[in-house]
Protein backbone atom coordinates (compact mmCIF):
# COMPACT_ATOMS: atom_id res chain seq x y z
CA UNK A 1 0.00 0.00 0.00
CA UNK A 2 1.47 3.36 -0.96
CA UNK A 3 1.50 6.62 0.99
CA UNK A 4 -1.61 7.95 -0.63
CA UNK A 5 -3.60 4.80 0.05
CA UNK A 6 -2.56 4.86 3.71
CA UNK A 7 -3.68 8.48 4.06
CA UNK A 8 -7.02 7.81 2.42
CA UNK A 9 -7.59 4.76 4.59
CA UNK A 10 -6.74 6.72 7.74
CA UNK A 11 -9.15 9.50 6.75
CA UNK A 12 -11.90 7.00 6.08
CA UNK A 13 -11.30 5.30 9.42
CA UNK A 14 -11.39 8.64 11.21
CA UNK A 15 -14.61 9.69 9.48
CA UNK A 16 -16.26 6.39 10.40
CA UNK A 17 -15.10 6.65 14.01
CA UNK A 18 -16.56 10.12 14.58
CA UNK A 19 -19.71 9.58 12.54
CA UNK A 20 -22.03 8.82 15.50
CA UNK A 21 -21.25 12.23 16.99
CA UNK A 22 -22.88 13.97 14.04
CA UNK A 23 -25.27 11.54 12.46
CA UNK A 24 -28.97 11.08 13.04
CA UNK A 25 -30.36 7.69 13.97
CA UNK A 26 -31.49 7.24 10.41
CA UNK A 27 -28.02 7.86 9.01
CA UNK A 28 -26.62 5.53 11.65
CA UNK A 29 -28.95 2.75 10.59
CA UNK A 30 -27.90 3.14 6.96
CA UNK A 31 -24.23 3.19 7.95
CA UNK A 32 -24.68 0.07 10.08
CA UNK A 33 -26.35 -1.69 7.19
CA UNK A 34 -23.47 -0.76 4.87
CA UNK A 35 -20.97 -2.15 7.34
CA UNK A 36 -23.05 -5.29 7.74
CA UNK A 37 -22.98 -5.93 4.01
CA UNK A 38 -19.31 -4.96 3.80
CA UNK A 39 -18.44 -7.55 6.45
CA UNK A 40 -20.66 -10.28 5.04
CA UNK A 41 -19.47 -9.56 1.51
CA UNK A 42 -15.89 -9.81 2.72
CA UNK A 43 -16.68 -13.23 4.19
CA UNK A 44 -18.20 -14.41 0.91
CA UNK A 45 -15.25 -12.97 -0.98
CA UNK A 46 -12.85 -15.28 0.88
CA UNK A 47 -14.56 -18.22 -0.76
CA UNK A 48 -15.36 -16.83 -4.20
CA UNK A 49 -12.97 -13.93 -4.66
CA UNK A 50 -9.92 -15.63 -3.22
CA UNK A 51 -10.46 -19.35 -3.73
CA UNK A 52 -12.86 -19.21 -6.69
CA UNK A 53 -15.65 -21.28 -5.11
CA UNK A 54 -19.04 -19.76 -5.90
CA UNK A 55 -21.54 -19.89 -3.05
CA UNK A 56 -25.08 -18.79 -3.78
CA UNK A 57 -26.29 -19.96 -0.39
CA UNK A 58 -24.59 -17.75 2.15
CA UNK A 59 -27.95 -16.92 3.70
CA UNK A 60 -27.58 -20.40 5.24
CA UNK A 61 -24.80 -19.23 7.55
CA UNK A 62 -26.45 -15.91 8.34
CA UNK A 63 -29.63 -17.74 9.26
CA UNK A 64 -28.08 -20.53 11.29
CA UNK A 65 -25.83 -18.04 13.08
CA UNK A 66 -28.76 -15.76 13.84
CA UNK A 67 -31.14 -18.50 15.01
CA UNK A 68 -28.49 -20.14 17.18
CA UNK A 69 -27.68 -17.00 19.12
CA UNK A 70 -31.29 -15.81 19.24
CA UNK A 71 -32.55 -19.21 20.38
CA UNK A 72 -30.10 -19.38 23.27
CA UNK A 73 -31.00 -15.85 24.29
CA UNK A 74 -34.72 -16.41 23.99
CA UNK A 75 -34.83 -19.67 25.94
CA UNK A 76 -31.92 -19.41 28.37
CA UNK A 77 -31.14 -15.70 28.52
CA UNK A 78 -27.65 -16.43 27.22
CA UNK A 79 -26.08 -13.36 25.64
CA UNK A 80 -24.55 -13.47 22.17
CA UNK A 81 -21.03 -13.97 23.50
CA UNK A 82 -21.88 -17.56 24.32
CA UNK A 83 -24.17 -18.06 21.33
CA UNK A 84 -21.49 -16.75 19.00
CA UNK A 85 -19.26 -19.77 19.54
CA UNK A 86 -22.01 -22.27 19.03
CA UNK A 87 -23.14 -20.34 15.93
CA UNK A 88 -19.62 -20.43 14.52
CA UNK A 89 -19.28 -24.11 15.32
CA UNK A 90 -22.54 -25.04 13.62
CA UNK A 91 -21.76 -22.98 10.54
CA UNK A 92 -18.27 -24.44 10.31
CA UNK A 93 -19.78 -27.93 10.44
CA UNK A 94 -22.31 -27.03 7.74
CA UNK A 95 -19.62 -25.46 5.57
CA UNK A 96 -17.40 -28.49 6.09
CA UNK A 97 -20.25 -30.81 5.10
CA UNK A 98 -20.92 -28.86 1.89
CA UNK A 99 -17.22 -28.61 1.12
CA UNK A 100 -16.59 -32.28 1.80
CA UNK A 101 -19.50 -33.41 -0.37
CA UNK A 102 -18.48 -31.15 -3.22
CA UNK A 103 -14.73 -31.46 -3.19
CA UNK A 104 -14.57 -35.19 -2.48
CA UNK A 105 -17.02 -36.05 -5.20
CA UNK A 106 -15.82 -33.58 -7.78
CA UNK A 107 -18.83 -31.26 -7.71
CA UNK A 108 -17.58 -27.93 -8.98
CA UNK A 109 -18.57 -24.77 -10.80
CA UNK A 110 -22.31 -24.39 -11.41
CA UNK A 111 -23.06 -27.67 -9.62
CA UNK A 112 -21.23 -26.49 -6.54
CA UNK A 113 -23.25 -23.28 -6.56
CA UNK A 114 -26.45 -25.32 -6.87
CA UNK A 115 -25.39 -27.44 -3.92
CA UNK A 116 -24.97 -24.33 -1.77
CA UNK A 117 -28.45 -23.18 -2.79
CA UNK A 118 -29.87 -26.59 -1.97
CA UNK A 119 -28.42 -26.54 1.55
CA UNK A 120 -29.84 -23.08 2.20
CA UNK A 121 -33.27 -24.03 0.84
CA UNK A 122 -33.49 -27.29 2.75
CA UNK A 123 -32.50 -25.49 5.90
CA UNK A 124 -35.16 -22.85 5.30
CA UNK A 125 -37.81 -25.54 4.94
CA UNK A 126 -36.42 -27.38 7.96
CA UNK A 127 -36.62 -24.30 10.16
CA UNK A 128 -40.30 -23.91 9.32
CA UNK A 129 -40.78 -27.10 11.32
CA UNK A 130 -38.68 -26.25 14.34
CA UNK A 131 -41.30 -25.05 16.80
CA UNK A 132 -38.67 -24.46 19.42
CA UNK A 133 -37.40 -21.60 17.25
CA UNK A 134 -40.84 -20.28 16.41
CA UNK A 135 -41.35 -22.09 13.12
CA UNK A 136 -42.74 -20.06 10.22
CA UNK A 137 -44.28 -17.58 12.69
CA UNK A 138 -40.83 -16.27 13.54
CA UNK A 139 -38.65 -15.85 16.60
CA UNK A 140 -38.76 -12.56 18.46
CA UNK A 141 -36.30 -11.47 21.07
CA UNK A 142 -37.07 -8.72 23.51
CA UNK A 143 -36.28 -5.31 22.13
CA UNK A 144 -33.87 -3.46 24.34
CA UNK A 145 -34.09 -0.15 26.05
CA UNK A 146 -32.45 2.01 23.46
CA UNK A 147 -30.56 4.34 25.81
CA UNK A 148 -28.67 1.92 28.02
CA UNK A 149 -25.63 -0.02 26.91
CA UNK A 150 -25.74 -3.63 28.04
CA UNK A 151 -22.68 -5.15 26.39
CA UNK A 152 -23.14 -8.53 28.02
CA UNK A 153 -26.48 -9.03 26.30
CA UNK A 154 -25.58 -6.82 23.37
CA UNK A 155 -28.51 -4.49 23.90
CA UNK A 156 -28.14 -0.77 23.50
CA UNK A 157 -28.41 2.37 21.38
CA UNK A 158 -27.76 2.50 17.63
CA UNK A 159 -24.20 3.74 18.15
CA UNK A 160 -23.30 0.53 19.98
CA UNK A 161 -24.43 -1.61 17.03
CA UNK A 162 -22.69 0.75 14.65
CA UNK A 163 -19.37 0.50 16.46
CA UNK A 164 -19.66 -3.27 16.78
CA UNK A 165 -20.25 -3.57 13.05
CA UNK A 166 -17.43 -1.13 12.34
CA UNK A 167 -15.04 -3.23 14.42
CA UNK A 168 -16.15 -6.38 12.62
CA UNK A 169 -15.78 -4.83 9.17
CA UNK A 170 -12.35 -3.43 10.04
CA UNK A 171 -11.27 -6.74 11.54
CA UNK A 172 -12.41 -8.64 8.45
CA UNK A 173 -10.53 -6.21 6.21
CA UNK A 174 -7.35 -6.64 8.24
CA UNK A 175 -7.74 -10.42 8.30
CA UNK A 176 -8.30 -10.61 4.54
CA UNK A 177 -5.39 -8.28 3.82
CA UNK A 178 -3.16 -10.53 5.88
CA UNK A 179 -4.54 -13.73 4.36
CA UNK A 180 -3.99 -12.46 0.84
CA UNK A 181 -0.30 -11.90 1.53
CA UNK A 182 0.16 -15.23 3.27
CA UNK A 183 0.56 -18.76 1.95
CA UNK A 184 -3.23 -19.23 2.07
CA UNK A 185 -3.78 -16.23 -0.20
CA UNK A 186 -1.29 -17.47 -2.80
CA UNK A 187 -2.69 -20.99 -2.72
CA UNK A 188 -6.30 -19.86 -2.94
CA UNK A 189 -5.62 -17.59 -5.88
CA UNK A 190 -3.68 -20.34 -7.62
CA UNK A 191 -6.64 -22.68 -7.16
CA UNK A 192 -8.99 -19.98 -8.43
CA UNK A 193 -6.91 -19.37 -11.54
CA UNK A 194 -6.13 -23.00 -12.45
CA UNK A 195 -6.76 -25.86 -10.11
CA UNK A 196 -4.78 -28.45 -12.07
CA UNK A 197 -1.71 -26.25 -12.21
CA UNK A 198 -2.08 -25.47 -8.52
CA UNK A 199 -2.11 -29.17 -7.70
CA UNK A 200 0.94 -29.79 -9.86
CA UNK A 201 2.80 -27.22 -7.77
CA UNK A 202 2.20 -29.22 -4.62
CA UNK A 203 -1.00 -27.66 -3.33
CA UNK A 204 -3.43 -30.02 -1.62
CA UNK A 205 -6.41 -28.34 -3.23
CA UNK A 206 -8.99 -30.23 -1.19
CA UNK A 207 -7.54 -29.00 2.08
CA UNK A 208 -7.19 -25.36 1.02
CA UNK A 209 -10.64 -25.17 -0.53
CA UNK A 210 -12.07 -26.63 2.68
CA UNK A 211 -10.25 -23.95 4.65
CA UNK A 212 -11.75 -21.21 2.47
CA UNK A 213 -15.28 -22.56 2.93
CA UNK A 214 -14.89 -23.05 6.66
CA UNK A 215 -13.42 -19.61 7.23
CA UNK A 216 -16.10 -17.97 5.11
CA UNK A 217 -18.83 -19.86 6.98
CA UNK A 218 -17.39 -18.90 10.36
CA UNK A 219 -17.23 -15.22 9.43
CA UNK A 220 -20.76 -15.27 8.07
CA UNK A 221 -21.99 -16.91 11.27
CA UNK A 222 -20.83 -13.77 13.09
CA UNK A 223 -22.93 -11.68 10.68
CA UNK A 224 -25.90 -13.80 11.62
CA UNK A 225 -25.43 -13.30 15.35
CA UNK A 226 -25.22 -9.58 14.81
CA UNK A 227 -28.31 -9.66 12.62
CA UNK A 228 -30.34 -11.42 15.30
CA UNK A 229 -29.50 -8.91 18.02
CA UNK A 230 -29.85 -5.91 15.76
CA UNK A 231 -33.19 -6.74 14.18
CA UNK A 232 -34.62 -8.81 17.03
CA UNK A 233 -36.91 -10.84 14.81
CA UNK A 234 -36.19 -13.77 12.56
CA UNK A 235 -38.31 -15.58 9.99
CA UNK A 236 -37.03 -18.62 8.07
CA UNK A 237 -38.86 -17.35 5.02
CA UNK A 238 -36.75 -14.20 5.01
CA UNK A 239 -33.41 -14.96 6.51
CA UNK A 240 -32.69 -18.15 4.54
CA UNK A 241 -34.22 -16.86 1.33
CA UNK A 242 -32.11 -16.98 -1.79
CA UNK A 243 -32.68 -13.28 -2.36
CA UNK A 244 -30.71 -12.73 0.86
CA UNK A 245 -27.83 -14.74 -0.55
CA UNK A 246 -27.96 -12.66 -3.71
CA UNK A 247 -28.00 -9.45 -1.69
CA UNK A 248 -24.83 -10.59 0.11
CA UNK A 249 -22.89 -11.25 -3.08
CA UNK A 250 -23.97 -8.16 -5.02
CA UNK A 251 -21.67 -5.87 -3.03
CA UNK A 252 -18.45 -7.76 -3.78
CA UNK A 253 -19.47 -8.31 -7.42
CA UNK A 254 -20.18 -4.63 -7.98
CA UNK A 255 -17.20 -3.49 -5.94
CA UNK A 256 -14.77 -6.04 -7.37
CA UNK A 257 -14.53 -9.77 -6.71
CA UNK A 258 -11.27 -10.84 -5.14
CA UNK A 259 -10.24 -7.33 -4.12
CA UNK A 260 -9.95 -6.15 -0.54
CA UNK A 261 -11.98 -2.96 -0.85
CA UNK A 262 -14.47 -4.16 -3.43
CA UNK A 263 -16.88 -5.63 -0.86
CA UNK A 264 -16.80 -2.42 1.18
CA UNK A 265 -17.24 -0.10 -1.77
CA UNK A 266 -19.94 -2.30 -3.29
CA UNK A 267 -21.89 -2.41 -0.03
CA UNK A 268 -21.76 1.39 0.24
CA UNK A 269 -22.77 2.02 -3.36
CA UNK A 270 -25.64 -0.46 -3.32
CA UNK A 271 -27.05 0.44 0.07
CA UNK A 272 -26.86 4.18 -0.50
CA UNK A 273 -28.38 4.06 -3.96
CA UNK A 274 -31.11 1.59 -2.99
CA UNK A 275 -31.97 3.70 0.02
CA UNK A 276 -31.93 6.85 -2.06
CA UNK A 277 -34.35 5.33 -4.55
CA UNK A 278 -36.68 4.13 -1.81
CA UNK A 279 -36.64 7.53 -0.14
CA UNK A 280 -37.23 9.32 -3.40
CA UNK A 281 -40.16 7.10 -4.28
CA UNK A 282 -41.81 7.50 -0.90
CA UNK A 283 -41.32 11.26 -1.15
CA UNK A 284 -43.45 11.13 -4.26
CA UNK A 285 -45.85 8.76 -2.58
CA UNK A 286 -45.11 5.95 -5.00
CA UNK A 287 -45.03 2.42 -3.67
CA UNK A 288 -43.94 -0.40 -5.93
CA UNK A 289 -43.07 -3.70 -4.28
CA UNK A 290 -39.81 -5.26 -5.45
CA UNK A 291 -38.42 -2.00 -6.78
CA UNK A 292 -35.22 -2.57 -4.83
CA UNK A 293 -34.62 -5.89 -6.56
CA UNK A 294 -35.21 -4.35 -9.97
CA UNK A 295 -32.80 -1.62 -9.05
CA UNK A 296 -30.16 -4.13 -7.95
CA UNK A 297 -30.55 -5.85 -11.29
CA UNK A 298 -30.00 -2.62 -13.18
CA UNK A 299 -26.90 -1.70 -11.20
CA UNK A 300 -25.50 -5.19 -11.70
CA UNK A 301 -26.14 -5.00 -15.42
CA UNK A 302 -24.46 -1.63 -15.78
CA UNK A 303 -21.40 -2.66 -13.77
CA UNK A 304 -20.98 -5.98 -15.59
CA UNK A 305 -21.26 -4.24 -18.94
CA UNK A 306 -18.92 -1.35 -18.28
CA UNK A 307 -16.68 -2.48 -15.41
CA UNK A 308 -16.58 -6.27 -15.51
CA UNK A 309 -13.91 -6.35 -12.80
CA UNK A 310 -16.02 -4.17 -10.51
CA UNK A 311 -15.77 -0.53 -9.55
CA UNK A 312 -12.83 -0.75 -7.19
CA UNK A 313 -9.97 -1.63 -9.59
CA UNK A 314 -10.87 1.35 -11.79
CA UNK A 315 -11.44 3.68 -8.84
CA UNK A 316 -8.14 2.64 -7.25
CA UNK A 317 -6.31 3.56 -10.43
CA UNK A 318 -8.11 6.92 -10.61
CA UNK A 319 -7.21 7.65 -7.00
CA UNK A 320 -3.57 6.89 -7.75
CA UNK A 321 -3.49 3.94 -5.40
CA UNK A 322 -1.22 1.14 -6.55
CA UNK A 323 -3.06 -1.80 -8.07
CA UNK A 324 -3.70 -4.13 -5.21
CA UNK A 325 -3.61 -7.81 -5.69
Amino acid at each position, binding site marked *: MNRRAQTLLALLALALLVLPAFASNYVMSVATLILFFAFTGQAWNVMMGFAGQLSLGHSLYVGVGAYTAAGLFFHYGLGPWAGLWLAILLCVLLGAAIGFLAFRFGISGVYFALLTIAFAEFTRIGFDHIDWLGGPGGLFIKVAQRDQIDLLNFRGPPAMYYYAMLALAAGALALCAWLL*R*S*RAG*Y*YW*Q*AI*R*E*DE*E*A*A*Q*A*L*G*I*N*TFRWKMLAVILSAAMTAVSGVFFAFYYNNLFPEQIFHISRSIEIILGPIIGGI*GTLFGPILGAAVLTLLADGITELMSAFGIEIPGVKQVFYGIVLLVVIMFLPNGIWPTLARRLGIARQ*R
Partner: protein
Amino acid sequence: MALLEISSLSKSFRGLRAVANASLEVPEHGIVALIGPNGAGKTTIFNIAAGVYAPDGGEIRFAGRRIDGLRPDQICAAGIGRTFQIVKPFAGLSVLDNVIVGALQRCRTVSDARALAARVLDQLGLGGKRDLPASSLTLPDRKRLEVARALATRPQLLLLDEVMAGLRPTECDQMVEVFRELNSRDGLTILLIEHVMRAVMALARQIVVLHHGEIIARGAPAEVVRNSAVLECYLGEDAEV
Protein backbone atom coordinates in the same frame (compact mmCIF):
# COMPACT_ATOMS: atom_id res chain seq x y z
CA MET B 1 18.93 -48.00 -9.66
CA ALA B 2 17.38 -45.37 -11.87
CA LEU B 3 15.72 -42.32 -10.30
CA LEU B 4 12.54 -42.84 -12.32
CA GLU B 5 11.48 -46.34 -13.31
CA ILE B 6 8.41 -46.79 -15.45
CA SER B 7 7.56 -50.45 -15.94
CA SER B 8 4.96 -51.98 -18.27
CA LEU B 9 2.75 -48.93 -18.11
CA SER B 10 -0.66 -49.09 -19.80
CA LYS B 11 -3.51 -46.64 -20.07
CA SER B 12 -6.64 -46.58 -22.20
CA PHE B 13 -9.23 -43.86 -22.70
CA ARG B 14 -12.63 -45.29 -23.52
CA GLY B 15 -11.13 -48.28 -25.29
CA LEU B 16 -8.45 -46.26 -27.02
CA ARG B 17 -5.05 -47.54 -25.99
CA ALA B 18 -2.98 -44.41 -25.33
CA VAL B 19 -0.05 -46.16 -23.64
CA ALA B 20 0.65 -49.87 -24.12
CA ASN B 21 3.11 -51.74 -21.95
CA ALA B 22 5.69 -48.96 -21.98
CA SER B 23 8.83 -49.20 -19.87
CA LEU B 24 11.54 -46.61 -19.52
CA GLU B 25 14.11 -45.48 -17.01
CA VAL B 26 15.71 -42.16 -16.25
CA PRO B 27 19.03 -42.48 -14.42
CA GLU B 28 19.82 -40.05 -11.62
CA HIS B 29 21.39 -36.85 -13.02
CA GLY B 30 20.51 -38.05 -16.51
CA ILE B 31 18.67 -36.34 -19.35
CA VAL B 32 16.31 -38.52 -21.38
CA ALA B 33 14.17 -37.38 -24.30
CA LEU B 34 10.81 -38.95 -25.10
CA ILE B 35 9.91 -38.42 -28.75
CA GLY B 36 7.25 -39.65 -31.11
CA PRO B 37 4.52 -38.37 -33.42
CA ASN B 38 1.48 -36.50 -32.13
CA GLY B 39 -0.95 -38.73 -30.30
CA ALA B 40 1.74 -41.30 -29.50
CA GLY B 41 0.93 -41.13 -25.78
CA LYS B 42 3.84 -39.05 -24.52
CA THR B 43 1.80 -36.55 -22.53
CA THR B 44 -0.27 -39.40 -21.12
CA ILE B 45 2.89 -40.97 -19.68
CA PHE B 46 3.72 -37.61 -18.07
CA ASN B 47 0.23 -37.27 -16.70
CA ILE B 48 0.43 -40.68 -15.08
CA ALA B 49 3.88 -39.98 -13.68
CA ALA B 50 2.60 -36.65 -12.31
CA GLY B 51 -0.46 -38.20 -10.70
CA VAL B 52 -3.18 -36.84 -12.97
CA TYR B 53 -4.32 -40.36 -13.88
CA ALA B 54 -3.79 -43.73 -12.28
CA PRO B 55 -2.45 -46.29 -14.78
CA ASP B 56 -4.53 -49.26 -15.91
CA GLY B 57 -1.49 -51.45 -15.52
CA GLY B 58 2.18 -51.27 -14.65
CA GLU B 59 3.94 -49.22 -12.05
CA ILE B 60 6.10 -46.17 -11.56
CA ARG B 61 8.86 -45.86 -8.99
CA PHE B 62 10.61 -42.68 -8.03
CA ALA B 63 13.82 -43.10 -6.01
CA GLY B 64 12.69 -46.65 -5.36
CA ARG B 65 9.24 -45.73 -4.05
CA ARG B 66 5.94 -46.53 -5.78
CA ILE B 67 4.32 -43.27 -6.84
CA ASP B 68 1.64 -44.33 -9.33
CA GLY B 69 -1.77 -43.54 -7.92
CA LEU B 70 -0.52 -40.72 -5.69
CA ARG B 71 -2.12 -37.28 -6.04
CA PRO B 72 -0.31 -34.62 -8.10
CA ASP B 73 0.51 -32.57 -5.01
CA GLN B 74 2.02 -35.59 -3.30
CA ILE B 75 4.15 -36.29 -6.35
CA CYS B 76 5.31 -32.68 -6.42
CA ALA B 77 6.20 -32.95 -2.76
CA ALA B 78 8.13 -36.15 -3.49
CA GLY B 79 10.36 -34.17 -5.85
CA ILE B 80 8.92 -34.29 -9.36
CA GLY B 81 8.17 -31.02 -11.13
CA ARG B 82 6.20 -30.90 -14.37
CA THR B 83 5.23 -28.41 -17.04
CA PHE B 84 2.05 -28.53 -19.09
CA GLN B 85 2.19 -28.83 -22.86
CA ILE B 86 -0.89 -26.63 -22.99
CA VAL B 87 0.35 -23.92 -20.69
CA LYS B 88 -1.61 -23.16 -17.54
CA PRO B 89 -0.49 -19.82 -16.17
CA PHE B 90 -2.33 -18.27 -13.23
CA ALA B 91 -3.52 -15.58 -15.60
CA GLY B 92 -4.75 -13.07 -13.04
CA LEU B 93 -1.53 -13.13 -11.01
CA SER B 94 1.74 -11.42 -11.77
CA VAL B 95 4.61 -13.42 -13.23
CA LEU B 96 6.43 -13.26 -9.89
CA ASP B 97 3.36 -14.39 -7.94
CA ASN B 98 2.96 -17.34 -10.31
CA VAL B 99 6.43 -18.53 -9.40
CA ILE B 100 6.02 -17.74 -5.69
CA VAL B 101 3.19 -20.28 -5.61
CA GLY B 102 5.65 -22.93 -6.74
CA ALA B 103 8.41 -21.71 -4.45
CA LEU B 104 6.15 -21.99 -1.40
CA GLN B 105 6.44 -25.76 -1.80
CA ARG B 106 9.92 -25.67 -0.26
CA CYS B 107 9.98 -22.30 1.53
CA ARG B 108 8.64 -21.67 5.01
CA THR B 109 7.80 -18.02 4.51
CA VAL B 110 6.42 -15.95 1.66
CA SER B 111 9.47 -13.69 1.70
CA ASP B 112 11.81 -16.67 1.27
CA ALA B 113 9.59 -17.87 -1.55
CA ARG B 114 9.70 -14.44 -3.17
CA ALA B 115 13.51 -14.43 -3.10
CA LEU B 116 13.70 -17.93 -4.59
CA ALA B 117 11.10 -17.05 -7.24
CA ALA B 118 13.01 -13.93 -8.25
CA ARG B 119 16.20 -15.98 -8.68
CA VAL B 120 14.48 -18.59 -10.83
CA LEU B 121 12.91 -15.88 -13.00
CA ASP B 122 16.31 -14.27 -13.57
CA GLN B 123 17.72 -17.63 -14.50
CA LEU B 124 15.10 -18.01 -17.24
CA GLY B 125 15.40 -14.46 -18.49
CA LEU B 126 11.99 -13.43 -17.19
CA GLY B 127 13.32 -11.16 -14.43
CA GLY B 128 12.35 -7.99 -16.28
CA LYS B 129 8.77 -9.13 -16.65
CA ARG B 130 8.12 -10.21 -13.10
CA ASP B 131 5.52 -7.54 -12.34
CA LEU B 132 3.48 -8.05 -15.50
CA PRO B 133 0.26 -10.03 -15.27
CA ALA B 134 0.88 -13.54 -16.58
CA SER B 135 -2.00 -13.05 -19.02
CA SER B 136 0.06 -10.48 -20.91
CA LEU B 137 2.94 -12.86 -21.74
CA THR B 138 3.63 -14.19 -25.25
CA LEU B 139 3.50 -17.96 -25.76
CA PRO B 140 7.29 -18.47 -25.56
CA ASP B 141 7.31 -16.49 -22.31
CA ARG B 142 4.42 -18.57 -20.99
CA LYS B 143 6.47 -21.67 -21.72
CA ARG B 144 9.34 -20.14 -19.76
CA LEU B 145 6.94 -19.35 -16.94
CA GLU B 146 5.84 -23.00 -16.88
CA VAL B 147 9.46 -24.01 -16.46
CA ALA B 148 10.12 -21.34 -13.83
CA ARG B 149 7.13 -22.40 -11.74
CA ALA B 150 8.11 -26.06 -11.87
CA LEU B 151 11.75 -25.28 -11.07
CA ALA B 152 10.70 -23.16 -8.09
CA THR B 153 9.32 -26.29 -6.43
CA ARG B 154 12.96 -27.46 -6.30
CA PRO B 155 12.38 -30.80 -8.01
CA GLN B 156 14.85 -33.65 -8.23
CA LEU B 157 13.27 -34.69 -11.51
CA LEU B 158 11.85 -32.24 -14.04
CA LEU B 159 9.28 -33.33 -16.63
CA LEU B 160 9.27 -30.94 -19.60
CA ASP B 161 6.44 -31.23 -22.11
CA GLU B 162 7.36 -29.47 -25.36
CA VAL B 163 8.70 -26.31 -23.75
CA MET B 164 10.80 -25.39 -26.80
CA ALA B 165 7.83 -25.21 -29.15
CA GLY B 166 7.53 -21.76 -30.65
CA LEU B 167 10.98 -20.59 -29.58
CA ARG B 168 13.36 -19.14 -32.13
CA PRO B 169 16.65 -21.05 -32.58
CA THR B 170 18.62 -18.60 -30.43
CA GLU B 171 15.97 -18.69 -27.71
CA CYS B 172 15.95 -22.46 -27.92
CA ASP B 173 19.73 -22.53 -27.45
CA GLN B 174 19.43 -20.27 -24.40
CA MET B 175 16.86 -22.58 -22.85
CA VAL B 176 19.06 -25.60 -23.63
CA GLU B 177 21.91 -23.84 -21.87
CA VAL B 178 19.75 -23.27 -18.78
CA PHE B 179 18.86 -26.96 -18.58
CA ARG B 180 22.46 -28.03 -19.16
CA GLU B 181 23.59 -25.86 -16.30
CA LEU B 182 20.82 -27.08 -13.98
CA ASN B 183 21.82 -30.62 -14.86
CA SER B 184 25.57 -30.27 -14.45
CA ARG B 185 25.62 -27.82 -11.53
CA ASP B 186 22.60 -28.91 -9.48
CA GLY B 187 22.39 -32.49 -10.68
CA LEU B 188 18.82 -32.00 -11.88
CA THR B 189 17.43 -35.07 -13.65
CA ILE B 190 15.35 -34.29 -16.73
CA LEU B 191 12.82 -36.20 -18.81
CA LEU B 192 11.73 -34.14 -21.77
CA ILE B 193 9.11 -34.54 -24.47
CA GLU B 194 10.28 -32.55 -27.44
CA HIS B 195 9.73 -32.17 -31.17
CA VAL B 196 12.50 -29.63 -31.65
CA MET B 197 15.33 -32.02 -32.58
CA ARG B 198 17.90 -29.28 -32.17
CA ALA B 199 17.16 -29.26 -28.45
CA VAL B 200 16.85 -33.04 -28.18
CA MET B 201 20.23 -33.63 -29.79
CA ALA B 202 21.89 -30.98 -27.64
CA LEU B 203 20.49 -32.23 -24.33
CA ALA B 204 19.56 -35.88 -24.33
CA ARG B 205 21.97 -38.66 -23.54
CA GLN B 206 19.28 -41.16 -24.32
CA ILE B 207 16.24 -41.01 -26.57
CA VAL B 208 13.12 -43.12 -26.21
CA VAL B 209 10.72 -43.28 -29.16
CA LEU B 210 7.03 -43.83 -28.62
CA HIS B 211 4.58 -44.75 -31.38
CA HIS B 212 0.91 -45.66 -30.87
CA GLY B 213 1.58 -45.98 -27.17
CA GLU B 214 4.43 -48.46 -27.61
CA ILE B 215 8.12 -47.91 -27.31
CA ILE B 216 9.64 -48.74 -30.67
CA ALA B 217 13.25 -47.68 -30.17
CA ARG B 218 15.64 -46.42 -27.57
CA GLY B 219 19.31 -45.59 -27.43
CA ALA B 220 21.91 -42.89 -27.87
CA PRO B 221 20.75 -39.96 -30.01
CA ALA B 222 23.03 -40.75 -32.94
CA GLU B 223 21.74 -44.32 -33.14
CA VAL B 224 18.08 -43.51 -32.78
CA VAL B 225 17.94 -40.94 -35.57
CA ARG B 226 19.33 -43.57 -37.97
CA ASN B 227 16.89 -46.25 -36.81
CA SER B 228 14.68 -47.26 -39.72
CA ALA B 229 11.61 -47.93 -37.57
CA VAL B 230 11.84 -44.40 -36.20
CA LEU B 231 12.21 -42.84 -39.62
CA GLU B 232 9.24 -44.84 -40.80
CA CYS B 233 6.93 -43.74 -38.02
CA TYR B 234 7.74 -40.12 -38.68
CA LEU B 235 7.79 -40.23 -42.45
CA GLY B 236 7.01 -43.68 -43.78
CA GLU B 237 3.50 -44.56 -42.75
CA ASP B 238 1.69 -42.52 -45.35
CA ALA B 239 4.52 -42.71 -47.88
CA GLU B 240 3.75 -46.37 -48.48
CA VAL B 241 0.10 -45.81 -49.28
